[in-house]
């Protein structure tokens, strides 16, 4: 699969030009955020400051950005430890995120959460999770809540190929199928779970094949192709909103960096090379240039704007004070 394949995609017509530009912009934002966060972490580490674990999602932006373009503000998103992209796409503020990454008082969780734990229920961001598969059963609950209250809200739960092996996957999808819940399970299959290749974790080719065991439709798609992701997800969202139940979507994708910042690269070079060539951002960029929706200048301006925004966020975060230690016991109880 190369960038050429995009050209054959019919579903490009589904999305307005403006929406396409917004998706590209969101992909840039996510990428720049990840680049900047790594840089920031390295600088702090060089000064001997621990900042915990940093799991970046460069390479997986097509999925988050498509979700962002489809989802309503009152829809729910549960993400993972690799959740910056999903959070930004759901509308989280880069400043408050960056501040949280540095454990500052102005961060999303006032320094209590860090990279893996950022929440904003007011925009439907139900948080990251440090537990692999941790969001799977919680998403059942949020979807159940929508059904219970008879709203047309939809819930998306992101999880990795690794999480597909957890017992929680089974229990969650079984309930989602039984109760026809408005929940969409998106498996971002990036072929690796930490240092474990997918074939060590899963004995079948397509994880979406498991959907049949829960009476749920399942699809495995190219997760680096915005159009395909958009169309598949959009269809699932429409179904869920209509009360027609859950969907399991497996997006094949790849992360451009090691599992987390402190871990060395252990994946085969050629595999990585091949996937870098399928970078969702350059593919989509080329697409939009070809479609004449975008010109080089606009593209460069778009990227620069986003870069500036992220730089500002870093600046802001660095200047924020750390939490007052006397607030240690705040927020234990509601």
């Amino acid at each position, binding site marked *: 699969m190369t960038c050429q394949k995009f050209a054959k995609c019919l579903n490009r017509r589904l999305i307005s030009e403006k929406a396409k530009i917004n998706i590209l912009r969101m992909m840039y934002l996510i990428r720049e955020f990840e680049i900047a966060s790594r840089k920031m972490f390295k600088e702090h580490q060089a000064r001997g400051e621990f900042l915990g674990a940093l799991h970046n999602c460069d390479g997986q932006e097509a999925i988050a950005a498509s979700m962002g373009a489809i989802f309503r503000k009152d829809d729910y998103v549960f993400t993972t430890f690799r959740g910056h992209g999903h959070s930004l796409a759901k509308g989280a503020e880069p400043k408050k995120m960056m501040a949280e990454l540095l454990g500052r008082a102005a961060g999303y969780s006032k320094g*209590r959460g860090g990279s893996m734990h950022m929440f904003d*229920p007011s925009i439907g961001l139900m948080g990251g999770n440090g537990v692999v598969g941790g969001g799977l059963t919680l998403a059942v*609950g949020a979807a*159940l809540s929508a059904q219970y209250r008879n709203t047309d809200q939809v819930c998306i739960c992101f999880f990795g190929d690794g999480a597909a092996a957890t017992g*929680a996957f089974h229990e969650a999808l079984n309930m989602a199928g039984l*109760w026809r819940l408005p929940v969409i399970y998106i498996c971002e299959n990036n072929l690796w779970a930490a240092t474990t290749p997918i074939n060590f974790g899963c004995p079948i080719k397509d994880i979406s094949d498991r959907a049949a065991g829960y009476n749920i439709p399942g699809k495995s798609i190219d997760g680096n192709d915005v159009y395909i992701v958009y169309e598949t997800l959009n269809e699932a969202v429409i179904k869920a909103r209509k009360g027609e139940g859950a969907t399991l979507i497996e997006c094949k994708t790849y992360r451009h960096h090691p599992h987390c910042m402190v871990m060395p690269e252990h994946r085969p070079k050629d595999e990585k090379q091949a996937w870098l060539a399928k970078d969702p951002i350059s593919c989509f960029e080329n697409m939009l240039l070809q479609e004449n929706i975008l010109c080089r200048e606009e593209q460069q301006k778009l990227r620069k704007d986003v870069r500036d925004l992220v730089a500002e966020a870093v600046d802001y975060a660095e200047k924020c004070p750390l939490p007052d230690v006397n607030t240690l016991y705040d*927020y234990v109880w*509601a």
Partner: protein
Amino acid sequence: MLKSVLCLMLILYMTMSGRKGAKRYMREITYTVALREAITEEMENDKNVFLIGEDIADFGGVFGVTKGLLDKFGRNRVRQTPISEGAIIGAAVGSAMTGIRPIAEIMYVDFITFGIDQMVNQAAKLGYMSAGAVKVPLVVRAQQGCGTCEAAQHSQQLEAWFMHTPGLKVAMPSDAYDAKGLLKIAIRDDNPVVFLEHRLLYATKQNVPDETWTVPFGKAAIKRKGKEITVVATSFCVHKALAAAEKLSGKIDVEVIDPRTLVPLDIDTITESVKKTGRLLVVHESVTQCGVGAEIVRQVMEKCFRSLKSVPKVLGGASIPMPFSRVLEEKAIPQELDIIETVEKMIKE
């Protein structure tokens, strides 16, 4: 000799558990009915309250607590689930995060092990990790206890685990009055609450007021006034302690305190009592090591070390998996006689 010992004990406790001086109450209800009333009233008051758990709908729960609620509230509010404790608690947590107020039922606390991630890594931590952006107004009701010969995998008592997990409130009512009053408050609480019922208490009866009532969290009940020794007991052991106190009365004047909630723990009522009596015995069925008794001893130590006349003691479950055979099971948890003997020994010390 062994015949119907347990049955007799049960009947004894049932009779005694009608609280003294409460004779003005005309209504007698069981612990089970008390719990059901609490749930019913709160569901009537707040349409966001719903039930989720195994066998709770048509059958009304294996211990009968939710009997009739399906008819009253319908399937949307009484969600019977597959055997998926992880998803039951997870779904409860997820819906609580969106403002719903679920009451999850776990049939035996032993099986909360399958939802312990959801309980401990999620429910207990979400509020703090999000600096209050997320609330988890959740009640997990679970049943525990010994005395029915169900062996090691159906006899765990896990209140100490939950007390060791910051972010969870823990209630353990010992009679119908407290059961109803505490459960209503638990349902209204914006924090996750683990609500632990005792298997042998369900059938116990008690006179209660005509009007409804609540019991606050963090307020211990002095179930019997006394001057010479403080016995802190939880759940079913409250009744054993009361029976022991009754037997000792005339000889030794025993004060019996039921903390009712372990988190928050009303340590002040306990320490005041110990300052008065100078002696502390904690009695519970759960394992002694790293248990609730050890924690109460630690806290009492810090607050009234100098007032103590004898070594504070804990009578807890033996350090063994719970055996099946009733002769062994009886021996593995504190009995009335053990309490009597220990109190007598402590007084002589």
